């Protein structure tokens, strides 16, 4: 019988949640790597039992853990992330030049085809790749070196490369997003890059329509229509139908268009989910009501999904990597909060229930659909 495995990264360890295809009863394993910040875990689409985890610590730095058995056992692999050449400087918060310094891996994106090939998005923003299962990591420095790098600035959470998307129809096409630089696209498997931020407007930069400087929080695509991208920006929910060449706003009737994650339904490329947060200075849901918003029209028209979610006195946040969908039918959707809850819906968002309520603050959630 089919099943689901949900990989949860938290401030104090990793947890693995598993259920059968009904998604009614869950088993929880963990904490794995107790006491460490687990920014992200993700499984290989080509081998779902191959998992990668980013284990970090302000004291002890970066570790990369790999599992070959679906998270039952783990082995540390390579943790040497060295920028290519002389790294140079980017812009600091006050506008002065600041040296590029590796801090941590925010996101792993395993290749669609090869379990040993994985992309890593890191802080300070850069893209690395391994082709030997994590033993060694090499920077794809065409991103940092394409010209705008010295002008990138950190967002409030640091200058992180947090989103990596692969186009399943064009294997050499990649997208990344960086806070607070914007979105970028490569057509040659990461060798060269161009900014794709036309149509974005951001009031926190001197020229609101500048080529770079936008605080993109997340981008999502549907594998059947990879030229259509959905973006949750610092403010504004955006859409592009030409691979990011031009964006248009689709915030529509959302109660606030600030937020972090954005997801696309596994079977409906025009069904999109966001979790609105009150503002950039108040990182909790408006009115103390935790609501997921769903659009079945690719944006502009949104409906609140509230059944099973707290509708009073709720002041948690949902971070950019802390939501995911499975590919069962009906589509399952999951998200984790800074209050340690992981909520699941087995009916595409119509109703919700907590899988766990009392984990450490959740940093990332990834759902795997198991055969």
């Amino acid at each position, binding site marked *: 019988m089919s099943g689901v495995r949900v990989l949860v990264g938290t401030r104090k360890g990793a947890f693995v949640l598993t259920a059968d295809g009904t998604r009614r009863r869950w088993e929880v394993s963990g904490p794995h790597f107790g*006491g*460490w910040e687990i920014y992200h875990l993700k499984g290989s689409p080509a081998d779902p039992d191959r998992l990668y985890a980013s284990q970090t*610590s*302000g*004291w*002890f*730095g*970066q*570790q990369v853990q790999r599992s070959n058995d679906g998270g039952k056992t783990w082995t*540390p692999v390579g*943790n*040497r992330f*060295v920028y290519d050449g002389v790294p140079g400087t980017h812009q600091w918060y006050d506008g002065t030049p600041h040296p590029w310094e590796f801090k941590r891996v925010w996101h792993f994106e395993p290749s669609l085809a090869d379990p040993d090939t994985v992309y890593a998005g890191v802080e300070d923003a850069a893209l690395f790749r391994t082709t030997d299962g994590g033993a060694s990591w090499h920077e794809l420095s065409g991103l940092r070196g394409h010209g705008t790098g010295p002008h990138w600035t950190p967002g409030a959470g640091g200058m992180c490369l947090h989103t990596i998307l692969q186009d399943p129809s064009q294997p050499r096409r990649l997208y990344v997003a960086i806070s607070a630089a914007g979105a970028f696209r490569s057509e040659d498997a990461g060798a060269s890059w161009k900014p794709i931020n036309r149509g974005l407007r951001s009031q926190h930069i001197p020229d609101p329509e500048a080529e770079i400087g936008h605080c993109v929080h997340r981008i999502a695509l549907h594998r059947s229509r990879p030229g259509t991208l959905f973006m949750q920006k610092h403010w504004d929910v955006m859409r592009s139908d030409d691979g990011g060449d031009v964006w248009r706003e689709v915030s529509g009737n959302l109660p606030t268009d600030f937020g972090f994650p954005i997801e696309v339904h596994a079977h409906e490329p025009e069904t999109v989910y966001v979790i609105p947060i009150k503002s950039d200075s108040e990182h909790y849901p408006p009115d103390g009501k935790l609501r997921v918003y769903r659009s079945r029209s690719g944006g502009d028209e949104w409906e609140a999904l509230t059944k099973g979610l707290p509708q009073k006195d709720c002041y948690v946040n949902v971070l950019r990597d802390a939501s995911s969908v499975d590919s069962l039918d009906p589509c399952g959707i999951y998200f984790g909060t800074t209050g340690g809850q992981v909520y699941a819906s087995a009916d595409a968002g119509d109703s919700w229930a907590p899988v766990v309520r009392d984990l450490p603050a959740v940093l990332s959630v990834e759902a795997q659909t198991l055969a």
Partner: protein
Amino acid sequence: MIVVALPTHLRTLARVDGDVALEVEGPVTQGSVLDALEASYPVLRGTIRDQVTLKRRPFIRFFACRRDLSHEAPDAPLPEAVASGAEPFLVVGAIAGG
């Protein structure tokens, strides 16, 4: 033998239960002790000092014989009691955060 005491998280990472005993070739210094430690436990590379610059990570301290040796030169000799194995070389995570 040099005795090195590691913080809990690094013991877990290195899969050791208690203090670590190391043979160190030549002068016993911070650098030579950490070289020997990383050679025996490669998983600790990058956790105590930077892998490229070999600078001590900011939240790591080195104590021995009731002294803070964190700011000593990496090639300065460690106290004789450490070199003889009578006293451990302590790798400590600084008190910070929660």
